[in-house]
């Protein structure tokens, strides 16, 4: 691991002189519950993308394409707002089930055993 800078090397006053660096601060480890999206019932309204406070929803070609788990804190705002009730929150400790690395799954396939009701 690289050595952290010494006091003489830091900008004074705790200032951060570089813009747009929050991407390097990975907050995914804060999560207790992990969102997953059922792409069989998703209606592509993109309200989750609009309301996510950490810009963790991938939207490509106007379609919801899963989660940035490096930064998602598991706040569940996406699950709460989803009008199609297609986003569920599962415990981080639960197996991923059939979802891919961005948390997308298809409900026709087998589900994880510990699904949390998305209305919570």
């Amino acid at each position, binding site marked *: 691991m690289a050595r952290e800078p010494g*006091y003489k090397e830091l900008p*004074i006053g705790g*200032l951060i002189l570089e813009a747009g660096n929050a991407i390097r601060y990975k907050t995914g480890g804060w999560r207790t519950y992990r969102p997953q999206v059922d792409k069989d019932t998703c209606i592509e309204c993109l309200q989750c993308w609009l309301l996510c406070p950490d810009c963790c929803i991938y939207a490509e070609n106007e379609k919801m394409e899963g989660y940035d788990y490096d930064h998602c804190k598991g706040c569940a705002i996406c699950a709460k707002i989803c009008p199609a009730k297609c986003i569920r929150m599962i415990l981080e400790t639960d197996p991923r089930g059939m979802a891919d690395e961005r948390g997308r799954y298809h409900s026709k396939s087998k589900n994880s055993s510990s699904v949390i009701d998305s209305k919570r």
Partner: protein
Amino acid sequence: MNKVVALTGNEAAAEAMRQINPDVVAAYPITPQTELMHKFSDFVADAVVKTEMILVESEHSAMSACIGACAAGARVMTATSANGLAFMWEVVYIAASLRLPIVMTVVNRALSGPINIHCDHSDTMGCRDSGWIQLYGENPQEAYDNIIQAIRIAEHPDVRLPVMPTFDGFIISHTLERLEILSDEEVGKFIGAWKPVHPLLDIAHPVTYGPLDLQDYYFEHKKGQAEAMKRAKGVVLAVGKEYGALSGREYGFFEEYKTRDAEQIILCLGSASGTVKSVVDGLREKGRRTGVLKLRMFRPFPAEEILSAIGHAKSIAVLDRAEGFSGLGGPLFPEVRSALYGRSDAKVINYVYGLGGRDLSPEMILSVFDDLEEGRITDREAVHLGVRI
């Protein structure tokens, strides 16, 4: 070219602020600072300064507005006293830790309670560890001179710390005295053009002020502050010398008054030193080798220089105009004794005096010199000078 005027301490401070012409002043009135801001508000209302004056609802807001304005890129000043300073407390620390060169005059007044509006140093001594440079003035002349120098010290690239020039409430703030002031042009040239460092309003170079600073970085930032405070010593001397060349009044860390061959020395801050000097003059006529070291700069603390200046004395009395409630006396005393510890044979004793504006009479000072000469007082306990028993 010096011009001779008659001003109170508050008027002298307001005059210095007028000549400095800061971009932003945010302040809230509190006795005995009120008159200073009244006077400066007149300058704003009469458009003789270009200052944006922000009238806030409290001192906490005053310092917060100063911090915001200074971070945004403005040259910022304010003033307060006693409970106003206490109410600012948390933001006073933040101004220093963000390394913002704000200059705040503090007109010294006793902290409540019981409520009291008169002079002691409990207010500024309370924030001695907040990371602000502190310069104590003896009279309206020094109040004026210190404020102008404070701008240069605060903004120096090796320092970048806020500065607190102080003077005694009522005793100095409301007393008319003769002093000499510089011309507006001289002051403008001396302080130089304001150069903001990392201003928030420079949108081409966005910066973050005040991010969360945890176990991995906070310590380094505090170390940076401590080192800047040490570097401030050299800057205070250089600025004091340059100011001397301009005005004829050179400033250092302290004034040595008849201390070179003195056997008994009093060390004190602020207006008391004038009275002590006159007592020393009287004693010198009688052949008693007495002197006074008037400390101007309390933060950073000039320990080595104090040792060199008074370490030769037989006995030293440290006069504190604040009670530390440690059971050992006031806040100035332990620092002076630490400076001398193991390197001087002087006996150092502590007197707490003048709390809540109680007068310090020449007779009291004489009694201190008598105590020192006769070795009457133990160095294990502070004396409360002039208190009724």
